[in-house]
Structure formats: C-alpha cells, structure tokens
C-alpha cells in the first residue's frame, strides 16, 4: 500500500477488486446510459426531420417531458419554447396541422427523417395492436400491453422513472438525514435527545403502509411519490451520520479547529462532515434500490402515477391477465426491476466492503 494513497483512491482500488461491486457499478452505469438515451431510442417522433424546408429535432422535446417531473415547470419550459423560441429547446415542436409525425411521414411530407430504433413512445396507444405477445407483431418487439402501449419502449423509459425516483427521493432523504445527523452528533445534549427521539418515532411506523396512506390522500403524482419516499427514508442516514459525527467530534483535529475560533458551522461542514460522510454513500446506494422498489410496489398496487411509464404498472397489468397468458407483461418489467435493484444493492455491498476497516488489506 502506497503511504500517500488518498481515502477515495483506496476505496476505488478496493472496489475495482470487488467483483460483485463492480458488476453493480456496471449495471448502474448502463441504467443511467439507458435513461439518458431513452428518448432517442424509443420515441414516436423522429430524431431529426425536415418538414416544409425547416429542420426539427422533435425527439429532444421528450427530454423535457420525461426528465422534468414537475408539471408546472414542464409547462413553463414548453411555453418558453413555443412562445419565446428559446434555444436549445426551440425547434422541437413543429406545427403539423394536428397530425402526428408518423402521419406526416406516411403522407410523404418529410424530406429528411431519422427515426429512433423503436418508433413508439411509452405512453402512445396503438389501438390496432392490443395485448400482443412478443413476436406477434413485428412492430412491437416485446409485445404490447392491454392498451396497446409498446412494452420495450415502456421498459426503456421506465429507467428514467426509476432513476428520477431513486435520485430525487434519496437526495431529499440524504439532505434531511445528513443535516439532522450532523446537528445531533455535533451539538449533542438536548438537540441530540430530541432528534434521536423523533427518529425513533418515525422508525416505529410501518413505512410502506404510511407511504400508501399518504399517497392515497394526496394526488398520486410521481412528484408526490418521490417527496413522500424522501421524507420517510431519512432515518437510516441520520443514524449513520450521527454515529460517525460522534466518533469524529472527539478527535484532536476538531478540537484544534475549534480552538482556532472557527464558527461552529465551519467546523461542522469543513472538518467534521467530510470525515463522517463515507458510510452515507453505502446507505444511498441501498436507499436508491429501496426507493425504486417502493415506487414500483406502489404502481403495482395501483397507487402510482399512470402518466409515467412505471415498471410496476406493467407488472400489475400482467397480473390481471395471468389467465390470458400475457406472460411478457410480467416477465420483462419484473426483470428490469430485478436488474436495477441488483445493481444498486451490489454497488452498495461493494462500497460497504471497500470501506470496511476490518477488511483492510
């Protein structure tokens, strides 16, 4: 071991040697890539099209639709694009006189067009092709669901939903957990007592039941789901951070920083937090998996946001049509969830092993 090796570099080196951890990392990277490319791979709009002499990039508009979960912000962006013509958003919405791009293509009005591999968007209904199994309709590689939506397209765009839910929910959880944990561990005494009690109370509630109840009372939009998942999932991070901060706080260099007369927040943020944060990454990796599982479970139970292509919703349809043998509705999205969970869990496991001081080489 080189004496000058930094903490991060050592973790990375150990993670590289951890087979399953690396496998998890690869899966996570692939999922991220898939979610970034989904609008260009599966879409009912062309990537590039020339219509009546001007060039459009219609598929880019889907990025706004699927990557911005906040509806009001989405409308705001769209209206900016339509009325103000803002670059780089401008030029995605062509005026097609009420027709879809496919109809325009069929009419032969597109002089140049480059289409995605899968010419279906996840929320587009193909009325002529309901409940098709894979292979029954060459246009739909993995078949269609009961409303004629392309399963493969939903799978690809489902990665966007999973990533959004995981990342945003865990951001909220981490923000709450780290802030409160830092405060509790650093200040101790009354603050610690109160915050620990609150955590204990929150941990007593059956989380999934609570989530269903809140989602059922609120409007089941994907934003609400992310918020609720974020607001109930912080306890684990709180406990980790608090424990680490308690350990770090008693170290000499913290006393030194305080003796220099630095303000408390500076000691906390610059000196204590960086040395107490590493276990949080493990918790975040597992937490993303949990959030994805919770979101798909909610969709499976019918509490999900039906305007986004959640994998859980398709599994639910598969369950309703077990007797009709629509196995593809269960198998493929379920596999997608399984792979996602495995990826994040393996990554979390790998990180944990890499950070475990007892396993130091």
């Amino acid at each position, binding site marked *: 071991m080189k004496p000058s090796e930094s903490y991060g570099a050592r973790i990375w080196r150990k993670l590289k040697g951890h087979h*399953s951890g690396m496998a998890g990392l690869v899966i996570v990277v692939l999922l991220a890539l898939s979610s970034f490319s989904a609008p260009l791979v599966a879409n009912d709009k062309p990537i590039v099209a020339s219509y009546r002499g001007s060039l459009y990039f219609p598929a880019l508009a889907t990025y706004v639709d699927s990557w911005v979960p906040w509806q009001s912000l989405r409308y705001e962006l769209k209206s900016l694009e339509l009325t103000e013509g803002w670059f780089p958003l401008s030029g995605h919405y062509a005026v097609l006189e009420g027709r879809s791009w496919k109809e325009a293509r069929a009419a032969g009005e597109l002089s140049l067009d480059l289409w995605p591999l899968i010419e279906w968007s996840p929320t587009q209904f193909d009325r002529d092709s309901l409940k098709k199994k894979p292979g029954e309709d060459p246009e739909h590689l993995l078949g269609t669901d009961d409303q004629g939506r392309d399963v493969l397209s939903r799978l690809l765009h489902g990665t966007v939903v999973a990533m959004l839910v995981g990342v945003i929910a865990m951001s909220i959880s981490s923000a709450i957990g780290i802030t409160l944990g830092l405060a509790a561990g650093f200040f101790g005494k009354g603050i610690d007592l109160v915050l620990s*009690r*609150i955590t*204990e*109370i*929150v*941990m*007593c*509630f*059956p*989380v*999934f*039941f*609570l989530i*269903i*109840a*809140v989602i*059922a*009372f*609120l409007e089941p939009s994907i934003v609400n789901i992310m918020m609720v998942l974020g607001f109930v999932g912080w306890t684990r991070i709180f406990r980790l951070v608090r424990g680490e901060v308690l350990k770090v706080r008693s170290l000499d260099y913290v006393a030194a920083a305080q003796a220099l007369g630095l303000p408390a927040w500076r000691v906390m943020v610059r000196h204590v937090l960086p040395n107490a944060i590493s276990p949080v990454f493990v918790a975040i990796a597992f937490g993303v*998996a949990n959030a994805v*599982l919770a979101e*798909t*479970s909610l969709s*499976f*139970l019918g509490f999900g946001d039906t305007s986004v292509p959640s994998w*859980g919703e398709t*599994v639910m349809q*598969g*369950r309703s049509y*077990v*007797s009709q*043998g629509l*196995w593809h509705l*269960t*198998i493929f999205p*379920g596999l997608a*969830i*399984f792979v996602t*969970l*495995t990826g994040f*869990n*393996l990554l979390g*496991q790998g990180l944990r092993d890499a950070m475990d001081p007892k396993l130091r080489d």
Partner: protein
Amino acid sequence: MLTYLFKRIIAMIPTLLGITFITFLIINLAPGDPVATQFGQGGSERGAGAGEGGGGGDRERQADAIKAKKKLLGMVREDHTVSTWGLGEAVQEEIQSWPRLARLGELPGWPQALLVLESGALVVGTHEGSVLRLDAGGVPVWTARPAEGGTSGITTMVRDGERVLVGDGEGRLTAFSLEDGAMSAQSTALGRGLRDLQLLPDGTVASAGEDGLVRLHDASSLNSRQGLEGHVSGVYALALLPDGTLLSAGYDRKLRAWDTGSGALRYETEPLPQAVNEIALSPDGSQLALAGDDRAVHLVEVAPLPELRSRSLEGHFKAVSTVAWSADSSRLVSGSRDETARLWEVASGKELARTPDVAGAVRQVLVVGETVYTGARSWAEVPVWKRYLSWLWRTITLDFDRSFVDDRPVMEKITAALPITIFLNVIALAIIYLISIPLGVLAAVRRGGVFDQVSSVILFLLYSIPNFWLATLLIMGLSSERTFDLLPSVGLYSRGHQDLSYLSWLWDRSLHLVLPVTVMVYGGFASLSRYARTTMLETIQEDYVRTARAKGLPEYLVVFKHAFRNSLITIVTLVANLLPAMIGGSVIVEYIFSIEGMGRLGFDAILARDYPVIMAITTFSAVLTLLGILVSDLLYSVVDPRVRAE
C-alpha cells in the same frame, strides 16, 4: 432488572406521545373533508320531511351523519343546549353577528321542541325522547320520558293549563304534570309521528300526523276521537285562527281550513311552492307566517284567505323549518336547516340579524318577551388540544370507535385480522431463522471459501427480487390453468374447509400457505444470514474460542458449543428489528393472495378512506414495534448485563 425495565418504560413515554401525535397529525392534515367524499354532495333537492321519527329530511340526516363521523374523529361534539338571543341585541349594520345570550341546560339529546313558562322556566323535548323542565338558569327540575327505552324523539309540545302535552315520533300523545313531571295520560301509539299540536278552545287537542291526518284527541284520555281527512300526505303544521278555524298544512303544499265542530273541510288554498313546515299566527291576529321548504318564509294576510296572496322573506339557503313572531307582531324569527336562525322586520322584509354559530339545523324557535330561544341539532367544534387529548386517551384505552364502512367496531376488525398476520409472520420468521442461521454460520466457518461466496451471491440476488414480481411469477407458474394448477393462490383455505377431516384440513391449509410464505421468506435470508455470519466471525475471534481451540477441543465442539451458542443470542434479539417490516410488508402479500390480515385490512381502509381503521392500524403497528424494541432491549440486557449499567 426491574429498575432497568422501569427506566426503559419511562423512556418509551415520549415516543408513545410522538406516535399518537403523528397519527393525529396525519388525519387532521388529510386534505379536504375527511368524510364528505364518502357521502358525496348528492341527496334530494327537496329534502322534505317525509322521514321517520323526529322528522327531518334526508339531507339533514346526511349532514348529521357526516358530523357524526367527524365526531368519531373527535373534531366536533354534539351540543345539547338551548341557545337564547336578545331581540334588542340585534345589530343592524352587521347582519352576521347576533350575540348569543346564553346556552341553557346540558340535555341528554338535541332540543327539538321548546316551551317557555311565565317564570322563564323552560320545558324541552329532545331528539332521543326525553322531556325536561329547566329552571330559568338552565338547571333541570325534572326529567320524564313518554316511553321508557323508546328511541323516537319528541317532536312537538303544547301547554294545557298545569300540564304539558307532548307528541313524539311514534305518534304518541302524552300529558305530563308541569309541577313534577308525572305522567297523567297517554294515547296509544300511531306508528307514524306527530308533527304539531294545537289546543282548541273547547279543550280538545288537535294533532298533525305524518300519516296525513289531522286528529282530534279527547282531552282526558288523549286518544284520537276523530280523524280529519283531506291531506294527501304528511301534515306538518297546525294553527288556530281567531274565529276558531283550524288551519293545517304539510307536504302536499296546500293550506286547509277545518271546522272543528263538525270536522268538515271548509276550504283549501292553491298549492304553495313547496312543503310547509310550520304555521305561525301573528299575535295581533292579522297575518300568518309559513315556514316553507322553498327556503322562504311566506307571509299571508288572514282576512282574504281563500286566495293565497303572499309575500315572502327570502334569505335562507335551505328549507325553513320553524318560524315565530315577536309579541308586537313587527318582527319575526325563522330557523332553517341552513343552520342559522334569522330575525326579520316584517314591514320592510329586511333581515335584521343572523345567528352566527348555531352550527346545526334549527328545529324550533320561540320568542318570549325580548328573548329568542332556539333549539337546534348543533355541533360544537372541539379545540385542537382537546382533540389530541381525547385521541391520546382513546389510544391508551384502545378505543378506536367504529369503521366508517360497515359500522363494526374497529377493534373487532383488528382482532380478527391480527392473528392471521401474526400467524403468517411467525411461520415466515421461523423459516427465515431455520435456514439463514446455518447458512451464515457455515459461511463464517468457511470464510472466503466457495460456499461463502456462492451463497452470498445467491442470497443477494434473492434479496433483490421484488416480492410482488415473484408472487406474480409463482401464480403464473404454479397456480394457473395455463401452466400447472398445483397450488392455491387465493385465501388461506378452500371453500368448504369446515367439512374436511382434520388431516385433509391441515393439508389444505398447508397448501394454501406455500405461496404466501415463500414470498414472505426469501428476502429475509440475505440480511439475516449475513448478520449471523458477521456475529459468528466476531465470536470466533474471541479469546475464549481461542482458549477452547488451544485446549484441543474438536472443531465442531468449538464452533457449536463455544462460538455458536454465544452468537446465537444476539441474533435472536434481532427479531424485534424485523417487526416494523411485518405489517408494511404484509400489505403486498396479503393483497396478492387475498388474505384477510392486517395488511389487507389497512389497504382496503385506505382505499375507502376509513379513517378510524387507518388510525388504529398505524397506531397499533407503531406500538407493536415499540414493544418489540423493548423486548429486544430486555433480552439483550439479560444476555449482557453491562447494558443495564449504562
């Protein structure tokens, strides 16, 4: 040990308070009217009083039902008092604020019929069938009931010298002594309610019946002597004109006049817009005020009667149920189902004052001198802190009231569902422990070996399978007509399981358990076996294990007798930490396999917005979890006495 237990229990109290506070917060912050969604805003537009017992329309009963449900949630309470308002206190500029003078009495039910005596004393008939005399300060002097154990309300009262005549929702006419409340006479019950009484000059009592008859009752026996036929549906109101003519009106909208001597119908008017709920003759004898279901008070001149040329006072937004004149006939008070009583100036038709906070359909108003009395089905808002305290008390006493959906006690539903969930979870936990502890121990003993690596990867993959997906796959593969129909996937037993012999019942039961239990267990293997492995690894490094090895003991003895037994204890205490996941996790399994346990109960309650059940389940599982943690701590302190010293 006892002091430790005591300390732990004391430490739990703030947490318990927090749990009740959060459940309380969830329900109170739930958006919208927590109850209205159940009933919708429908109901008949007429809302006419063709109802049972104490009268009152569908709409009023619906409103009462909604408030009764709010009462269950502790948001409102029934306000069983008579309110008084001063005629002179009416503020002209601000219609809304008619200051209340006093609330009289703490009655057993809502006041529905009122009678004021000269002394200011009050006789009140309530919706649950009591008659009370209150002194001027509202203190009860006597209480009587026309029928013991009867449930129908008192609908109308009239004074007859030294006795009070009381009509109730079952059509009984009863006389009580004003002095001491002793019953002096009672008629037979008609079945349909009486809505109004009128004393005739010759001592005869006239009654208005919901069955459409105006009856004349014998003064001493009170039994019906003659029925006056003419109305085609319920009669709600009676009045006596100065010339001795008896007027009646009701649901059929026509005012009819009767000759009380012969019982002949003198005349009937053109129909009014809607049903008439009360007729009040002005003290100067010149005008009639009719309380109409059409939300207006109609003023009718007495003199040119056959033709009905009326003027109306409009302002109420629901049916007017009662009306009364001031002594000088210049002003008029009306009470309505819109939960207000309003004061009108008769000459100008102007609204002078409105009660602000009766908060319940007004059933009777009376004006005596300068005081207005109102009897209403009032509800009072309960302050938030009181609500919380009562919710806390209900949690402590496990009183969760009744379900909104089927009116069964919530505790009954929970005690039916809880054993099923616990049964399933105990089986699942037993299987998880039986399988994952040996796996963990073996992995620890052969640390880094093939078995360790392979088992950890397989368990990890199992852990990542979403349970609803596996459940669906299992149903598809093992319980579907298209593939193999090997195992049942609905419920915990077959139809007709009661008739099976014990062995085949057991077999049936076991078959039904296979799929749900499989789905419940596989995810637990990974975490528990990993925990067992870690604990075992730590124990193996202890000095006493090294000592055992050094003594030359065989390896299996070292592992099982020295290492395993010591690490087992810490693993067992882990049970408590698995509790929170129990009920939350059972939602999906019980939903998929149609098992009537706690998870399913909670799921259905959430769908139906059955707040008492949701609150009960949330509280229950939180408290169970807390108890689990306590038990785990206690177990731990038994194993490791150092914990207690902290």
